[in-house]
């Protein structure tokens, strides 16, 4: 906890990033430009998804190429629960669907966490390239399952007719929905900081640095990593549920390997293992997508160039460039 409190350059930059993300939608609202609120909401949700991945990748060194599975599962939880609430058909065991966001969030957290536990239980028996490939394989399984499941839209996806509700507020108002996502992002960042400073987080980082050394002090690396992976999956799943509500649409594209790659790119752009790395990365990514996407359809070519420059010359990502080397390298 100690280092969280100290005013360092990194904390200052984090504060600026958080304030900017909060300020933009208010300004956009004042000037009647709701599009920019949606853009900021997208940044917040992608940052949340990447914060989940950052737990596994940044702290645990687990290069999961399958986090789209959890993102998509969260999305489908929102879509499916809303669809059943709308049609009135019971879901399973006679349970109804729900239009309440908090119900959807809890289900998304639990379900993606459990799937993360199952995928992690098998994948974490491997390491290195095999781990990357096996997480990818699991995500592709979920992807093809979604495509071939006609009850919930198959390849066409599933629309959410009216954005799900949250007690006491009007979620259809872009600024309100942004604030919901923003608060959840801040909570997830607080969770990340707490975990990083905890004994569990320390052991997770130690296991990344040297598995054998961790075992000789009596810590089972597998169990620590599995716990980290499941928490990571749950957070990314929650982001998926919000993403579905943002677009009012879920499709298998949320589950595709492009999405997994995008989350890894966000983290590398922002700074791996840094608290605000995912937010910095998501902001850069969405801004590039918007600015370059307006100029050319092949904006991802330029994103590739930028990524190349980051990997070659600024390995700490945007935060590494602005705030110096990570304390936890």
């Amino acid at each position: 906890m100690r280092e969280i409190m100290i005013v360092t350059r990194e904390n200052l930059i984090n504060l600026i990033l958080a304030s900017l993300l909060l300020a933009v939608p208010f300004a956009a609202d004042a000037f009647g430009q709701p599009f920019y609120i949606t853009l900021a909401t997208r940044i917040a949700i992608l940052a949340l998804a990447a914060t989940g991945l950052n737990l596994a990748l940044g702290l645990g060194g687990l290069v999961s190429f399958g986090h789209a599975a959890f993102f998509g599962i969260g999305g489908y939880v929102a879509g499916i629960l809303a669809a059943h609430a709308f049609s009135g058909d019971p879901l399973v065991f006679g349970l109804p669907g729900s239009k309440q966001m908090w119900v959807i969030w809890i289900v998304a957290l639990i379900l993606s966490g459990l799937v993360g536990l199952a995928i992690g239980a098998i994948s974490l028996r491997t390491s290195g390239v095999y781990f990357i490939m096996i997480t990818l394989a699991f995500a592709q399984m979920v992807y093809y399952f979604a495509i071939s499941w006609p009850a919930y839209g198959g390849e066409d996806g599933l629309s959410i007719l009216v954005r799900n509700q949250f007690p006491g507020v009007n979620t259809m108002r872009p600024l309100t929905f942004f604030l919901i996502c923003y608060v959840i992002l801040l909570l997830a960042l607080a969770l990340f900081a707490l975990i990083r400073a905890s004994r569990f987080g320390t052991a997770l980082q130690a296991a990344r640095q040297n598995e054998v050394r961790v075992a000789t002090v009596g810590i089972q690396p597998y169990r620590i990593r599995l716990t980290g992976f499941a928490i990571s999956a749950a957070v990314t799943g929650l982001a998926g549920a919000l993403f579905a509500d943002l677009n009012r649409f879920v499709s298998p594209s949320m589950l595709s390997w492009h999405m997994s790659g995008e989350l890894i790119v966000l983290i590398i752009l922002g700074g791996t293992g840094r608290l605000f790395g995912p937010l910095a990365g998501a902001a850069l990514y969405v801004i590039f997508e918007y600015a370059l996407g307006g100029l050319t359809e092949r904006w991802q070519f330029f994103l590739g160039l930028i990524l190349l420059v980051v990997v070659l010359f600024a390995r700490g990502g945007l935060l590494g460039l602005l705030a110096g080397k990570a304390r936890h390298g």
Partner: protein
Amino acid sequence: MLLDVTRIEAFYGASQALFGVDLAVAEGEAVALMGRNGMGKTTTIRAICNLNPPRAGGVKIGGTDTKGKRPHHVAKLGIGLVPEGRRCFPNLTVHENLVAAARPGQWTLERVNELFPRLSERHAQMARSLSGGEQQMLAIGRALMTNPRLLILDEATEGLAPVIRQDIWKAIRRLKAEGLSILVVDKTLSELLPVADRCVILENGRSAWSGRPTDLTTELQDRYLGV
């Protein structure tokens, strides 16, 4: 016996490194594991910790057979390993290195800091920025924080400045006086022998001699330990 190693054989791939090592450490005893380079000291320690499990023979810790147990289980049986080469977690702070593996017992952060005051001065520093001697103190401190029944030190003071060596030996003597069981490997006989209750010498992967330090004559030293 706290540690009972009987006729273990260990391999690196196809090549055999240990051909039958016997070793025992009683509660509260300090045993020096000796031998020239390449005779199997580190391999024996790795076999005890199941990092390189023996293919024949047996290891018992506090009466429990370690056969088939994973390294973290062996550690939990009460083995605190200070590996060769002062291996800390370089990208964690001193404090984090110590608390990461802590298990409840008489060794607490306060006591480790009191044993090695230099560590408490550097508690927020990254382990990679410590000097070699400080890293060794940290490695010992980390092992103590797991509250082991047996502390194993592989090359306790190798490559350290003489002043630092004195600090490390002082700490080892204190740990012994407090009744901790210790298995120690080191080349400085002048420091090692006064600490040890018993010596075990390995030659070519076998236990070649075992006895009290006072019985380790110059002749034996020349025969087994001379270069």
